[in-house]
């Protein structure tokens, strides 16, 4: 008999990191109660999971840690003032039991990325699953499977950049080219200043033999995608991750479709070529 896909794995909050100055973005490290559940929770970068808080509900959240971080999984969650689950999660203390259902969705095209140059572009806290991708690609066992890695990451202010320590470390590495940018000049900021699309036009990542992953707020996407097209990135090689309100996460509850595509099972990652065939209802 099938197992009940609505019953979450039991997990505990093991670590919480406040990611930004506004303190409304936190990263939660979750530990599985049963070690074999972590094995069962076999995910690819770019997938997501339903975080479950009994009594409050569930939220679909992108997996922010790498599949090779074998002891835990991490999620970076923004708190919305009117959001039931995200608020309760932000109020949660270390050691709080909770649940996790998944993994869900298709994830980034890891197989296709092998042997390619990788360009990763992100803005704001949408960086979560891309952080997972970077962590994964930079893993010693994996790094050699792809060629150059270029990362462009921007936020409104330095205080809003997530995973600061990691990005600082990555900036120092030779095997990845990281460009960090903020929208406006800020005290103590020595990185770039400018919006992500402008920086992309400036950095000019090469489209040759490249796969591009891009995540960010709608405005960023709106202006960055034309820049990528200008640079020569092919729609079928440029991927982005969608967000729609979700409940089941497994293609049953009927709410997350964009045209005929269900974001929870057919996505959340789609190539620009696929997006072109989808109605603009997102």
């Amino acid at each position, binding site marked *: 008999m099938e197992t009940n896909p609505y019953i979450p794995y039991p997990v505990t909050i093991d670590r919480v990191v406040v990611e930004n100055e506004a303190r409304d973005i936190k990263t939660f490290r979750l530990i599985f109660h049963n070690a074999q559940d972590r094995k069962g929770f076999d995910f690819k970068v770019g997938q997501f999971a339903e975080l479950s808080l009994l009594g409050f509900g569930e939220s679909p959240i992108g997996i922010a840690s790498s599949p090779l971080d074998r002891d835990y999984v991490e999620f970076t969650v923004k708190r919305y003032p009117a959001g039931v689950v995200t*608020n309760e999660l932000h109020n949660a203390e270390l050691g709080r039991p909770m649940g996790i259902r998944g993994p869900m969705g298709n994830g980034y095209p890891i197989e296709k990325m092998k042997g390619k140059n990788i360009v990763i572009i992100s803005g704001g806290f949408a960086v979560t699953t891309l952080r997972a991708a970077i962590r994964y690609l930079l893993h010693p066992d994996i790094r050699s499977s792809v060629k150059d890695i270029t990362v462009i990451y921007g936020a409104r202010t330095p205080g809003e950049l997530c995973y600061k320590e990691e990005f600082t470390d990555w900036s120092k590495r030779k095997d990845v080219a990281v460009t960090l940018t903020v929208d406006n000049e800020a005290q103590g900021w020595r990185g770039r200043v400018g919006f992500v699309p402008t920086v992309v036009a400036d950095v000019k990542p090469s489209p040759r033999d490249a796969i591009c992953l891009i995540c960010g707020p709608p405005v960023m996407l709106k202006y960055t995608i034309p820049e990528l097209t200008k640079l020569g990135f092919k729609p079928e090689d440029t991927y982005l991750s969608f967000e729609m309100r979700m409940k089941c996460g497994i293609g049953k509850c009927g709410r997350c479709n964009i045209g005929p595509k269900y974001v929870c099972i057919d996505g959340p990652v789609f190539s620009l070529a696929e997006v072109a065939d989808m109605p603009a209802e997102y």
Partner: protein
Amino acid sequence: MPKQVDLKTIARDLLTKGKVEVFIGYQAASLPLAAAPLIIHGAKDSVDASQSMAPDAERDMMARKVAALIFDDRCEMNLVNYLHKFKDRKTAVVVKGCDSRSVVGLLQEKQVDRKNLVIIGAPCRGVVDRRHVAKLMGCDASREVDREGEHFRFQCAGSWKRVKVADAIYTACRECQVHNPVIADYWIGAPVPQPDLPELTAEMEALRKASPDHRWTRFHKEMSKCILCYACRNLCPACYCKTCFADACKPKWVGRTDDPSDAMLFHLQRLMHLGGRCTGCGACVRGCPMNVDLRLYNDHLRSHVKQEYGFMAGMDSAVHPPLAMYSMGDCNEFIR
């Protein structure tokens, strides 16, 4: 008294001369004994004229729709509800007596602008309750309705049957205190006589006298039928909140399970929001797919507002509704 006009003539006139952008009336529905809303866009509709349509085709469509307009005993929907959809556009709407009170309500609550409204009043003696007729006759396959004095004639399974008007129309219509619109720019018929009605219906008297147990059982039974489809709310012209309490997540006021307590909470809260605002138009009852008799509770609410505050909703747009103002004379019995 407003000028009496012909429905199709006035519709054509308003639409072609650009006096309104949208005309909301009735057409025959595909169901027997029912009319559906008919929304006609004028040539000068500023908002969503079908861009791809040739002006000729657009005019044809308008003419066809105007020709399909009806007003008769089938026109049960309260079209005032649609005014929310066409806010800020010049709109004409056909209103029965009861519906006209909803217009007054919306004017009082500043939801519509009188300048943008052309009100087509339709004096009305009651509309047919097709589910009740089906029950009376054991037959629903009728497409013909005639009125013969105090009777309706229905065609049912090949033969004509007669049903007394009073038996065929909605209970709300039998208890209607405003057969003639209280506000209108034109009338599409002669005023109809307004029967004298007792202050409280016999049913209401009985309900008030009934034991709490009896009332609870009755309430529980009605609420158990409700499937929380929200048709009642969505049809009610007075229910126009952008985010209804029923849709709020934080806090979540009501659940959506089949436990009758969820339906009870939904309806009780909705009733509270309608104190001094419900006009008794009956749109909610008529639209309910499960025949939940909300009327009883709306009536109860209205009769209290009338008794305690001497107020009838939707009669006069110059008077403030009791819950929108404070007066020393207010009934404050509940504060102890």
